[in-house]
């Protein structure tokens, strides 16, 4: 068993540095991944936030898409935030023509589901495995032009949803009840960006998942 697993962060575009810092804080050894040889050397991988259409194109240009699909099929643990969630989804809605994903998670993800940047928001959310632990606090979540999960397959575990009502009882207008964090086997995905809040608990959840596999 590795105590400090080597976890790659796909470094084609996006908030790579923030994931690197969060993984360090969570006890992993992060390394950037832009090439096949780098992918082959990691115990697990993080797909960062960024622009999913750009990352999709770059994955194909550098011919990392098929090796990554094969790695996911072969059981590589992968965590994706925001654009990373889109890349992990078996099905997407609101993608551009020809946009592909790596797949692996039996979920349907809607891109830019919460709206444009003026609709981007932060909120405290309960996340299973974190806020329900003894002494666990809600997670401060940041949603930036974020996707949500429309539908999940039977093997997918839902970890967090947008609440239907705010604390004053008024209904949440956009995204009420939508799934924003989920796990399918060794694949973990969040609509939000724990990497930019300084709270490493979601990354710690992933590092523990990786430790169980290695």
């Amino acid at each position, binding site marked *: 068993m590795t105590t400090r697993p080597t976890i790659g962060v796909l470094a084609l*575009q996006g908030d790579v540095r923030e994931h690197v810092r969060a993984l360090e804080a969570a006890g992993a050894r992060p390394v950037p991944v832009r090439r096949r040889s780098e992918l082959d050397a990691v115990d697990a991988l993080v797909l960062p936030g960024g622009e999913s259409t750009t990352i999709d194109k770059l994955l194909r240009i550098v011919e990392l898409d098929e090796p990554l699909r094969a790695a996911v099929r072969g059981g590589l643990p992968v965590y994706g935030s925001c654009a990373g969630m889109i890349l992990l989804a078996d099905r997407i809605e609101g993608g*551009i023509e020809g946009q592909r994903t790596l797949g692996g998670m039996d979920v349907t993800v809607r891109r830019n589901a919460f709206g*444009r*940047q003026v*609709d*981007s*928001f932060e909120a*405290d959310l309960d996340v299973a495995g974190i806020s329900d632990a003894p002494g666990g606090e*809600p997670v401060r979540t940041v949603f930036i032009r974020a996707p949500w999960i429309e539908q999940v397959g039977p093997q997918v575990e839902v970890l967090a949803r947008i609440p239907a009502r705010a604390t004053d009882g008024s209904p949440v207008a956009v995204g009420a009840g939508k799934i924003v964090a989920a796990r399918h086997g060794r694949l973990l995905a969040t609509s939000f960006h724990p990497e930019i809040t300084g709270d490493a608990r979601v990354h710690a959840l992933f590092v523990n998942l990786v430790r169980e596999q290695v």
Partner: protein
Amino acid sequence: MTNENLNTTAPSGAPAEASAGVVGTARVKRGMAEMLKGGVIMDVVTPEQAKIAEDAGAVAVMALERVPADIRAQGGVARMSDPDMIDGIVEAVSIPVMAKARIGHFVEAQVLEALGVDYIDESEVLTPADYANHIDKWAFTVPFVCGATNLGEALRRITEGAAMIRSKGEAGTGDVSNATTHMRQIRQQIRALSSLPEDELFVAAKELQAPYELVAEVARTGQLPVVLFTAGGIATPADAAMMMQLGAQGVFVGSGIFKSGDPVARAKAIVQATTFYDDPAVIAKVSRGLGEAMVGINVEAEPAPVRLAERGW
């Protein structure tokens, strides 16, 4: 649930009841720029160009009526773009859309926010509307990017609420020299601050004409508190890669793509060169067969009154 923040309001005072949380916070605005890092933001003037940019792998597009090369050639007062034209581009693509407001023109900014653009560039490429004040960017839910030629200017813009900085180059020239100068200047000033003892930071703040707290933060962290891109004069994959090697976290390309001989190939090449900025073999490969680069204008040959980078203060 302990979601005590669910009902707080946006900075502009607009009710946030339609949202599941708080909109328009500094973290949400600056975080948006974090997601653009390592990417290329391309100037476009039509929905067709916007589609080409998206298909080439741009992380965002900048919607404007004329690219800087044409503003420079045609002269006159350059203003915010026609809302119909911005709507057309917003409709055409799914990636973020940015648009420019004149320096100090807070009503153009209000209009752009109402149109739903994802980022506003308070830009010296347009004719300034106020020669004393920039826009109070804290008053908006939409985030702003502003240009800077040096660290003091960058920190003044951040004080006014800018959530992203781009080093200024000389837009519309295809001459990268000014972008180089300003990126080096900002990085050099940050390094200099980091080496100062704490008791010299007060005078450093005075000399930079920036708030002490921000100056002290930069000295401690060795970086700006927001993402730093570069802009102005970038015309080739090698230009983009050089800016990344100099410390830019991404690039804006204006006239350089759609004023070139083969915009599709050049756009793709600049995207790859930005990702593999430290790999000369990749830059060499993508630099082949791109056709004509935009016709350049030597910045030194431009009389000072038409140098755009000198607008803003």
